């Protein structure tokens, strides 16, 4: 009996026991196969062995049964943007805790950013983190390498060697590539190295020392603002360069109405561009920052309601094709600084689906099937297989109880850090079970299923 691999040479995780499991009478929703009705799902040897009308299957001896009537099964989620803080900042997060948070949030694939200490900008660093993932990662994990050495924005990394060494693509995330000339060379070099180039868009001449969205709230609070145009002007600039070079770029964590417009216009003009939106930009605005709680400080910042609406509309129309958390853990002592000094970032893996379900699906803003499609789409743009619920597919499924409410943080976090922008909020929809690459990686307490990663 061989362990199911992640089905991709650039995804890394520790070996797990192939799952043997019957999920009975769950409502199964997979927007890509069109399945949207109650089913029994039998998982054998880590693969989906049977999909049958509800109540018709029984578990083979030794395999546990999960009674899931009234609950939902989706293809497990994919997060193309997380910070696992390894190497060098393991006091914030490590691959074990970060991928545990992913499992708790229902994810079966995550892609980690290279702004670590040291930066993942050379093959030896990448090899080390890949090896660690092979020992520790609870869900298949991919890595991006940096575009420039040390994220300094001047010298290109050995992109081809890094791609051969396992990098799915390249990004200087956390920082923009300010020099249009350097970015252009990276995009030219992409023809050799392959790999999507993902961009954190922010013109530092416009964002300056800003710490939150520039608008009525920053004015009220007297803190320096980050104007929405600091993002959108770079989206427009870099889309133009990408189009000129025929390159493939991905815009990370789009936050403003102008950026969504710029992305739509670029695509209309023939550029090969894609975009992602975060749960926090989809559900919160700068009004939430009025209390100067540093857990609500992130980059790009929470913006105005019109921006939030534009990002939602972008996600609905497909201009933005995927949801990404930008899970960015920071230690308590760092976030306890005054707002202007605290580091930017919020955790997001454990609240991603529930925050969007609560704020957008329940009120009828977005259909559930669309959200499931977008929250599973983030790996495909880097060439990763999309989790599907179909017979013979590797089991990548999540069981969610949409009826159960929970308060964020009340039961602690699987992440090593607790800087969650949704802390204290009551959310609907809780993950009860996650199977990733054929292995049961999370089962909530009370599910009566033995699992190595049971948490409160």
């Amino acid at each position: 009996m061989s362990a199911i691999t992640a089905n991709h040479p650039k995804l890394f995780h520790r070996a797990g026991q192939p799952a043997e499991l019957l999920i009975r009478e769950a409502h199964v929703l997979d927007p890509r196969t069109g399945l949207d009705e109650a089913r029994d799902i039998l998982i054998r040897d880590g693969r989906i062995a049977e999909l049958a009308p509800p109540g018709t299957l029984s578990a083979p001896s030794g395999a546990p049964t999960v009674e899931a009537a009234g609950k939902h099964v989706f293809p497990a989620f994919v997060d193309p943007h997380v910070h696992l803080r390894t190497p060098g900042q393991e006091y914030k997060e490590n691959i074990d805790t970060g991928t545990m948070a992913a499992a708790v949030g229902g994810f079966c694939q995550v892609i980690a950013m290279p702004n670590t200490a040291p930066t993942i900008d050379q093959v030896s660093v990448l090899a080390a983190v890949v090896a660690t993932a092979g020992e520790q990662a609870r869900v298949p994990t991919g890595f991006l390498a940096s575009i420039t050495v040390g994220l300094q924005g001047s010298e290109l990394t050995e992109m081809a060697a890094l791609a051969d060494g396992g990098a799915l693509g390249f990004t200087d995330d956390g920082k923009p590539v300010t020099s249009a000339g350097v970015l252009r060379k990276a995009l030219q070099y992409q023809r050799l190295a392959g790999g999507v180039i993902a961009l954190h868009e922010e013109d530092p001449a416009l964002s300056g020392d800003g710490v939150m969205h520039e608008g009525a709230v920053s004015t009220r609070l007297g803190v320096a603002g980050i104007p929405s145009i600091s993002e959108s002007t770079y989206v427009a600039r870099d889309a133009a360069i990408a189009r000129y070079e025929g390159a493939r770029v991905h815009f990370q964590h789009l936050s403003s109405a102008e950026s969504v417009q710029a992305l739509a216009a670029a695509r209309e003009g023939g550029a090969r561009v894609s975009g992602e939106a975060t749960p926090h930009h989809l559900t919160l605005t700068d009004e939430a920052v009025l209390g100067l709680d540093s857990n609500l400080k992130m980059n790009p910042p929470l913006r105005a309601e019109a921006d939030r609406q534009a990002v939602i509309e972008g996600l609905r129309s497909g201009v933005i094709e995927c949801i990404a958390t930008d899970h960015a853990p920071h230690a308590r002592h760092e976030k306890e600084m005054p707002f202007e000094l605290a580091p930017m970032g919020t955790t997001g893996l454990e609240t991603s689906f529930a925050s969007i379900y609560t704020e957008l699906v329940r009120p009828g803003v977005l259909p559930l099937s669309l959200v499931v499609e977008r929250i599973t789409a983030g790996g495909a743009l880097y060439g990763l297989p999309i989790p599907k619920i179909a017979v013979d597919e590797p089991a990548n499924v999540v069981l969610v109880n949409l009826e159960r409410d929970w308060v964020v943080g009340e039961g602690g976090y699987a992440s090593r850090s607790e800087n969650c922008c949704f802390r204290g909020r009551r959310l609907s929809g809780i993950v009860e079970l996650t199977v990733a690459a054929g292995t049961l990686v999370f089962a909530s307490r009370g599910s009566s299923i033995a699992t190595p990663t049971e948490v409160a």
Partner: protein
Amino acid sequence: MSCHLITIDDLDRAGIERILARAQSFAEVSGREIKKVPALKGRTVVNLFYESSTRTSSSFELAAKRLSADVVSIRSAGSAVDKGESLRDTVQTLSAYDPAAIVIRSPYAGAAQQVAGWTDAAVINAGDGKHEHPTQALLDVFTLKQRLGTLDGLNIWIVGDVLHSRVARSDIHAFQRMGAKVTVAGPPTLIPRDIEALGCAATASLQDLHEADVVYVLRMQNERMHEAYVPSLREYIQRYQVNLPRLRAGQLLMHPGPVNRGVELSADAIDSDVALIGAQVKSGVAVRMAVLYDLLVGAPALQAVA
């Protein structure tokens, strides 16, 4: 009221009036030869100033002493210890002395709010970054009420670098809450975006300054020139300096201090009898006594001590 004074929004109009009524009584005490009352005898007030300040720190110190409190003043302006971590440690250390109140001045927005979460003492914000300076707003309202009786219907212009001014933020709210209409005027680079959302009007020109009953001038810091907010001191003076030719008879002039003579205000305007700048400083002690009293002693009628 709440047990802290963090922003001017902690006070409704009735709360402001209550504090100002007490300040009036304390102002009378300050007119006596023996200026002390025993209201806070045996209690401790800590002044924690992480930014240089002359008038605010001295007036809080004097206010606490005139209420007979024991006063500890800690200054670490510009020092590297002014980081959140050590702020928490400092506050928890000082809290071991069981202070009744902590008065905090910090270069960072939200610092007073954070301190309130780390101590049982009443916290008074003596200025947090460019966010708020609520006791300055109270003393400004007090000064105007002493002179004019009421702020209802007054037209108040706040002129200068609004972007970097915590005084402006607190005053815009306090003046409006007391019934005045507020207009901010200054270089467009120094008027923050969407300032109208605070309820005031905004303009880049002093052309209609004659409409103002009160002209409140903000300090113009020299470094703003280097940061390219304004092209030159000369142009700033030409367009925005408040001087006697720009003022009409009957207008009153205010400034939170310290003044850059000859920059935002001309020397003759500062020294003219329409300037309330000295009265503002004088009001500071009585108003801060009233704030300490209101937070630490509370509702009982003031006559008992005054």
